[in-house]
């Protein structure tokens, strides 16, 4: 059965159109960031930045404490994700591999926890942290971000753990490993892609979080990049060049991480983690 030319062509044409649709906003962000202001505020769009300038990036990074924001964001994000992974790994192992009373309750509990609308509870969280004298510190941020991603991490890892063949673990235990050793030596390496793809969600969430840090940390020493990005919008009105440069800088770490981890994540998925 030979397909018509049209039949062969349309998926590719659709793919190209979709590709452009998905990439254009990202492209436009970078393109705007490198264009001189005159080309940005121009009656006819300048599609390709010919006259490349770094002026907007200079303006974006020239803000006081820029590097403090960067390091705070990195610290908070990595710690939150790391803690969440460790705690979730233990929990998901129990949920995927063990039978015990109340298992169902735990699963439902984490599903409910996953639904928590954090943005609407901000004042409650603020008052707790304030009354504990923990304002302007990275600690509450880290633990709350950890909590924001924990339920998703547990539930997702559960699928990955369950997908590791039980026989492998048993074989290791027959070979004289303790259960803990079997876990470390056999399951953990097999879980690596799962851990990576799950951590992506955590990275994005923690990297992006904005309403909470805005209320908790008023001192610049304890603020993170999303605040820096949003302060741009208010301070410079719509200075699109600088705002896009800031957005680009903000997005780059996640874009890199994603492109790097996603390859493994998809291979992890195709390995069967997602089938249900």
């Amino acid at each position: 059965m030979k397909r018509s030319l049209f039949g062969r062509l349309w998926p590719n044409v659709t793919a190209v159109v979709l590709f452009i649709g998905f990439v254009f906003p990202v492209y436009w962000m970078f393109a705007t960031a490198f264009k001189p202001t005159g080309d940005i505020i121009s009656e006819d769009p300048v599609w390709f930045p010919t006259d490349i300038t770094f002026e907007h990036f200079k303006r974006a990074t020239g803000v006081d404490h820029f590097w403090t924001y960067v390091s705070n964001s990195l610290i908070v994000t990595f710690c939150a994700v790391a803690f969440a992974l460790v705690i979730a790994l233990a929990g998901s192992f129990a949920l995927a591999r063990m039978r015990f009373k109340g298992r169902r309750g735990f699963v439902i509990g984490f599903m409910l926890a996953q639904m928590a609308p954090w943005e609407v509870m901000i004042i409650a969280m603020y008052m707790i942290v304030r009354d504990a004298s923990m304002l302007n510190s990275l600690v509450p941020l880290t633990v709350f971000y950890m909590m924001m991603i924990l339920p998703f991490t547990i539930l997702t890892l559960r699928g990955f753990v369950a997908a590791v063949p039980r026989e492998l673990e048993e074989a290791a235990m027959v070979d004289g490993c303790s259960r803990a050793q079997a876990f470390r030596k056999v399951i953990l390496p097999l879980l690596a892609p799962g851990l990576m793809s799950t951590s992506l969600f955590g990275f994005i969430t923690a990297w992006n979080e904005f309403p909470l840090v805005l209320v908790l940390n008023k001192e610049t020493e304890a603020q993170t990049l999303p605040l820096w990005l949003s302060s741009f919008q208010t301070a410079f009105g719509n200075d699109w060049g600088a705002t896009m440069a800031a957005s680009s800088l903000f997005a780059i770490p996640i874009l890199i991480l994603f492109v790097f981890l996603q390859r493994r994540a998809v291979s992890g998925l195709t390995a069967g983690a997602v089938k249900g």
Partner: protein
Amino acid sequence: MKRKLISAIGVAGMMISLAACGGDNGDGGNKAGADGYAGQTLTVWVMDGSSPDQWQKDVQAAFEKQTKAKVKFEVQQWNGIQQKLTTALSEENPPDVFEIGNTQTPAYAKTGGLADLADLKSEIGADWTESLNESSIYDGKQYAAPWYFANRVVLYNKKIWAEAGIKDTPKTRDEFYADLKQIGEKTDAEPIYLPGQNWYHFVGLTIGEGAELVKKDGDKYVSNLADPKVAAAMETYKKFQALSKAPKDKDEATPQQGEVFGKGNVGAFIGMGWEAGIAIEANKKIEKEIGYFTIPGATADKPEGVFLGGSNLAVAAGSEKQELAKEFLKIALSDKYEGELAKLNGVIPNKESLQTNLKGNVVAEAAAPAAAGGGTTPLIPEWAAVENAPNPIKTYMTAVLNGKSPAEAAKQVEDEFNKRLSQQQ
């Protein structure tokens, strides 16, 4: 360049005289002792654009010299400031001193978050201009100190006006309109950049019409937007806005109107004098083209009504450094530094006697004629809630500009407006 140099010389002079002052005080036995405040740091919140770096540096030097304590200025954005200030005042370490908008002061005075400054007033405030001090007084008590005031002017592009063949700046509203029309016809520039939600200018227009935004209904304040005088002000706004391509649902900060003007293709805009700086930053070449004039009123003898924007300085009731905070206020509001601020920023100082500092300042000279007829939003604690986004007055403006009649638009936002005015406190 030249101005900077002059001010630098002036500053040097002041520092010398201040050093002498500090010595005197030490000998005279300052209450806190010669270095009673050493090691302490006073946190001061100032709003973006309100005080030039030079001023901050000078005051800092003077303050550190006199008290041996340090002062840290933290620049805040207007956007979302109320939310930030409220939480900050509830914390263990609130900012010790902070700038607060005059229209927002009564609400905060009522919360108990501001320290009573009665003794400061009697010590240094005897000759504060009464009308400017009005917003700082709540329930008969002094909760803040007046700092500076300013009103809007027209900033225009001399080159475009010359191109359109206009010789003189307009003296009446009709002349102003005719000039802008002429620019539209004779040049390819946008005559005026006036976004739909420059609500401070609109408040100015209502003041010019003698209109009130709220009225008393029993013991409650309610919307007075349905007043025909308010409608008249809005019609004026609409007439001028029609000459602009600016968005009808944005305010003057999104995008910064100074930046749009800086592109050099806009005839004029209505803004604060310091917004020229934004234009110059966007386009250096615009600097020599910028001119200023008073917003013309209905007749030549009376300029347009203006909103007298201003800021007070207040001390947090929760601050542990009350004395030090007052020391700071005494220095910052002293004739020397109050005068310097007026000079550098072209703003109206808190005392009549300091107005001489405005001589020769082009912005101040354009602003001054209107200031006498200036006014503010109602100085009541209920007002602060109105300014929280989404501000119903901005909604009203956009509705009219999009074709609703002022009466309809007033009706549309009335509920929201009244709800905010009657919000439980």
